[in-house]
């Protein structure tokens, strides 16, 4: 029997040829994208969202109507397709519903996306700082988070809005203040585990700065988390804005959001159901879209699965 001048020892636990390694690229993003594409619900959700966004941007430009002009001759019209007519009907003040719903989508999406991004960014900054610095600072920062957890935010926000008026900016701030706690916790956990894993070894062995090492490993993880949590926070934010509108604290007339339209439509539910159903449908579609997309992103990017 010939002796093989082998290099690596074939230990009994040598890595078997995994079925996955053979086929295609397995970069972090390529892999994730492929998994996302395979998830039909996520793709459907994403397409619906894309459709809504495109419609919201484009349709108002194509329509002869705008969202604020009153038309006393055409109050409460029911939907009717056909050139020159109000395709989705009109509301209590004769304004074209289609255009208003599209504007509503714009505002809701804007509020949702901006507020969630702000939330997520605050949370990420807080969490990474706490995790990286560690020690007493970490303890203090996370105690702060714990304390804030118990504060009944929503009542505070209501009071804020009642007292200080209904600026759009204030809405962003109020909403953002509520949701950053969870993200801060998760990001801090990730930073801590990374720190204990890589930092000590790397700093000792290679002399490369620990900070660079952490960044290199942390950033891909963080981007994933930011994407996932943004997508999942947006529906919450949109619904919260709807809640504020219901209380009369949302965006001011004549500007409207889906939430306001739904809130108004609820009071007219019995007589003019289309005023409720149409914005509610769009609202549900957007929320469904974000939920399924967010779930799909989480499944595709979840570091646990690696």
């Amino acid at each position, binding site marked *: *029997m*010939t*002796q*093989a*001048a*082998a290099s*690596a*020892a*074939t230990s*009994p*636990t*040598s*890595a*078997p*040829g*995994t*079925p*996955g*390694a*053979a*086929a295609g690229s397995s970069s972090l993003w390529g892999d994730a994208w492929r998994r996302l594409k395979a998830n039909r619900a996520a793709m459907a959700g994403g397409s619906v969202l894309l459709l809504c966004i495109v419609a919201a941007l484009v349709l108002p430009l194509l329509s002869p109507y705008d969202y604020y002009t009153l038309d006393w001759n055409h109050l409460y019209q029911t939907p009717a397709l056909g050139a020159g007519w109000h395709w989705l009907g009109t509301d209590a003040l004769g304004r074209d519903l289609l255009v208003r719903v599209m504007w509503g989508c714009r505002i809701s999406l804007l509020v949702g996306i901006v507020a969630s991004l702000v939330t997520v960014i605050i949370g990420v900054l807080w969490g990474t700082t706490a995790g990286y610095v560690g020690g007493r600072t970490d303890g203090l920062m996370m105690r702060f988070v714990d304390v804030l957890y118990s504060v009944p935010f929503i009542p505070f926000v209501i009071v804020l809005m009642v007292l200080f008026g209904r600026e759009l900016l204030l809405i962003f701030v109020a909403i953002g203040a509520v949701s950053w706690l969870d993200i801060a916790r998760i990001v801090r956990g990730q930073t801590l585990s990374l720190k204990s894993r890589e930092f000590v070894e790397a700093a000792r062995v290679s002399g490369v700065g620990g900070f660079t090492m952490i960044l290199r490993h942390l950033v891909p993880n963080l981007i994933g988390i930011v994407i996932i949590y943004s997508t999942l926070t947006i529906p919450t934010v949109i619904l919260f804005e709807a809640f504020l509108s219901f209380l009369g604290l949302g965006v001011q007339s004549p500007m409207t959001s889906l939430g306001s339209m739904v809130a108004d439509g609820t009071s007219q539910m019995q007589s003019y159901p289309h005023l409720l159903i149409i914005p509610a449908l769009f609202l549900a579609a957007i929320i469904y879209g974000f939920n399924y997309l967010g779930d799909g992103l989480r499944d595709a990017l979840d570091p646990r699965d690696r």
Partner: protein
Amino acid sequence: MDPTAPLLEVANLSVEYRTQRGVVRAVGGMDFTLAEREFLGVVGESGSGKSQLLLALLGLSAPGAAVHGSIRYRGTELVGAGPRALNQLRGNRISMVFQDPMTALNPYLTIGQQLVEVLRLHRQLSRADARSRAAAILEAVHISEAQRRLKQYPHELSGGMRQRAMIAMALVCEPEILLADEPTTALDVTVQAQILTLLRELRERMGTAVILVTHDLGIVAELADRVAVMYAGRCVEDADVRTLFADGQHPYTRALAASLPRLEGPLPERMFTIPGNPPNPARLPPGCSFAPRCAYVHERCLLAPPPLTVIGPGHRKACYLDGLPPIAGAP
């Protein structure tokens, strides 16, 4: 169930999975029998399908698996048997011990609860009787203070004790067959030795037949009566333990034996290793699976996988090669 029929007969057993990347064959065409009180060691590398083999024997393959072939326990066919029939055998006549006791035991139930439920299920004992039987089996596996341990949770026990507890759970109904999936791999070396001694002792006392799956040839050499060598889901050689180590006829067996470091004799410059890597179960070569790494490969080996043929009393191999000399310096 026929008490006179052979204990376990496995014929042409295969386990396949459909995946996104094609059909993965974890186990292909396994044939062997297990006699009463026999200790069969199944050896192979990771990915050779040995764990999948054990799971298939108890019908525990993952939900997407296609299991074909025949598994006869005392004449009763197990492949395709319904859950109720299988549940009567599991834990009762055929038991299994898993690799990592920390994850294989339920952390939310006490040891006592997990022992008692097996007894009450298969032996219809009262709670009190079951508890005393449970304490007795814990003592039999050398866990001291059995009564106290019964009330403890798995995480309160050491690794070795947990594995003993799992062995206790498997043996408490005195099964005829014990399946052990790498029971010592997750343990420290000193604890390994204790567990192996325990297995030998219990087996002698209870007369249980054992199928022990491992990648460690040393364990097999110490405990087994017979050994089956698995490669890429197939059995490539089986023989009684002495013959296998002294006169293994399959090149893979030889290579494995040669990979064992020796205590006597001069130290080699380099440790012997088998070149190459095990094949991808989703893309197996058309001929003999070992051919790409075999030192004796012929053209014939690449055309079709060699069948398992008898070459001596109780000795079979799957190889086209005719006769290799006995291994030099074998015990």
